[in-house]
């Protein structure tokens, strides 16, 4: 029988909000292949968090795995896969999932298809599969053929909803891999917490500025509006590259992907690499001198004109409210 393994990450016993997303396509795959489905996580701390999922599987334990250690995680997973003869391994393609799976695939010298959104065909020639995967951070998709006996995939984050836990406690067996102490060379040695507060990723409203803002100083008016609305300031890559804003403010393919209730894009044209970062917003308001700017035509609402003049008028109007 085909055995499918899902790697689910936990961070010292805590699951991220998206941690279980890869289980959804894995359940469908197990159904269509009539295969067994098991999960693996690293560190005893993950046991309590993952037992409620109801799947059987493994908790991988070893002193070198006492904290996140990408090389050792990859080796450990590779050993589990080889010893238990799993032929499909799936993980979420978040930072750690992508990293651990790449290590595992490299150790076993197998291909790894990153950020899959659909497993389109599992009955291709010579046992090959066809999958759809993300390119360009989501602006484009690729139909790819996977030719290998072992099928390793990561699932694009935010593509599938996480399944409800089915309640039954799945028995999770402890698996102790052989790992040389030397692999502790890539383990977290220190954690630094920064001030908490509203962030780009969590704010209900983001007031974002691009080239049209014109200078670092001119962002003051965006800051003022963001403060009045209980949100934060974002920006395009042009603003970052010009040194007007820190990179942590950047929205887009190589910045942060956000989904606020309202995204206010001021003086941003709407290149695809920016759009993929803000398209999940519930509402988008574009402020631009150019009525043909792509972000204006894709937005729910737009105001045409000079952003400085418009933001000043909006702020005055808010302050004048009873």
């Amino acid at each position, binding site marked *: 029988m085909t055995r499918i393994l899902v790697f689910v990450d936990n961070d010292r016993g805590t699951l991220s909000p998206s941690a279980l997303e890869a289980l959804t396509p894995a359940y469908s795959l197990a159904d269509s292949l009539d295969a067994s489905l098991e999960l693996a996580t690293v560190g005893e701390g993950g046991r309590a968090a993952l037992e409620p999922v109801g799947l059987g599987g493994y908790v991988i334990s070893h002193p070198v795995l006492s904290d*996140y250690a*990408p090389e050792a995680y990859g080796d450990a997973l590779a050993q589990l896969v080889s010893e238990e003869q799993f032929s499909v391994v799936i993980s979420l393609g978040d*930072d750690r999932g*992508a*990293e651990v799976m*790449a*290590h595992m*695939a*490299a150790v076993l010298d*197998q*291909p*790894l298809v*990153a*950020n899959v959104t659909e497993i389109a065909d599992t009955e291709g020639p010579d046992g090959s599969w*066809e999958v759809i995967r993300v*390119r*360009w951070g989501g*602006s*484009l*998709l*690729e*139909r*790819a*053929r996977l*030719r290998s006996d072992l099928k390793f995939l*990561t699932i694009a984050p935010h593509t599938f909803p996480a399944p409800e836990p089915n309640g039954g406690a799945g028995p999770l067996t402890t698996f102790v891999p052989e790992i040389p102490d030397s692999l502790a060379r*890539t383990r*977290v040695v220190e*954690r*630094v*917490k920064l001030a908490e507060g509203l962030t780009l990723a969590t704010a209900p*409203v983001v007031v974002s500025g691009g080239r049209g803002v014109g200078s670092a100083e001119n962002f003051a008016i965006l800051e003022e509006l963001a403060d009045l*609305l*209980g*949100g934060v300031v974002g920006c395009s*890559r042009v603003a*970052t*590259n010009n040194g007007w804003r*820190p*990179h942590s403010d*950047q929205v887009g393919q*190589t910045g942060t992907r956000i989904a606020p*209730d309202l995204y206010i894009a001021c003086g941003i*044209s709407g*290149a*695809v*690499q920016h759009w993929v970062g803000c398209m999940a917003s*519930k*509402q988008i308001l574009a402020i631009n001198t150019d009525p043909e700017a792509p972000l204006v035509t*894709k937005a*729910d*609402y*737009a*105001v*045409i004109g*000079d952003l400085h003049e*418009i933001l000043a*008028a909006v702020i005055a*109007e*808010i302050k004048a409210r009873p």
Partner: protein
Amino acid sequence: MNILVCVKRVPAPGARIVLTDDSQGIDTRHLGFTTSPHEECAVEAAVQLKERHGGTTTVLTLGPPDAVEQLRYSVSVGADRVVLVPADSTEWDPQATASALVEAIKDLEGDSPFDLILFGNESADSGGYQVGIRVARALGRPVISGLKGIEIDGDQMVGRRETDEGFEVYRLPMPAIAAAKEGITLPRYPTLPGRLKSRRAEIHEVPAEMTPGGQEMVSLLKPAEEVTETVILGHGAEAAPGVVRLLEEVGLL
């Protein structure tokens, strides 16, 4: 400190991506090309480390002859030596790319490994999130991804990466490898002397074999796009009351 940075030449699409008629690529007839942003920041990080600790910065790309444009650009912002691994312009899968890079790196290193090899966290176009890790595994060197800060402490590379709460710190013995994310540095703009130097720069060529891996691109497709009817709230300052009404409806006021 001798540092190597591996970069990829990619098109820079604007408002929309147009595919070729056979859906095998992006129609680049009207597009410029660039270096993936993560890698551009990695080049800047390498140049800054060299300025602080001495040594050389080498930039390498595997790509078509036109990729010399990106190599010359890297000289204009401080790279000392540039290397082209000639390839056709077909899609190389991650295993094929990694094994060719390993071959080229061994050739360049001889008996003296680079102290540090930097990659981008993921290539801008294909985004496989793995070439740097595969290269590190083949060379037997430690590697971390998501690098957002780097310092050298004796014979160790001290790397930082971001988490939801702040950052984590890693200490890798060198020779080491890391895959950087945009924001690790702010890339400088080329200076006039830099540009002149880049025009004269010698391009070293190192050949490598193409050994296909197990992943093959069949075709490209565009994600379904939502068509939106944009509501124009007005022009200039007169639109302010309409904007405030929207803010109230969304529940922000």
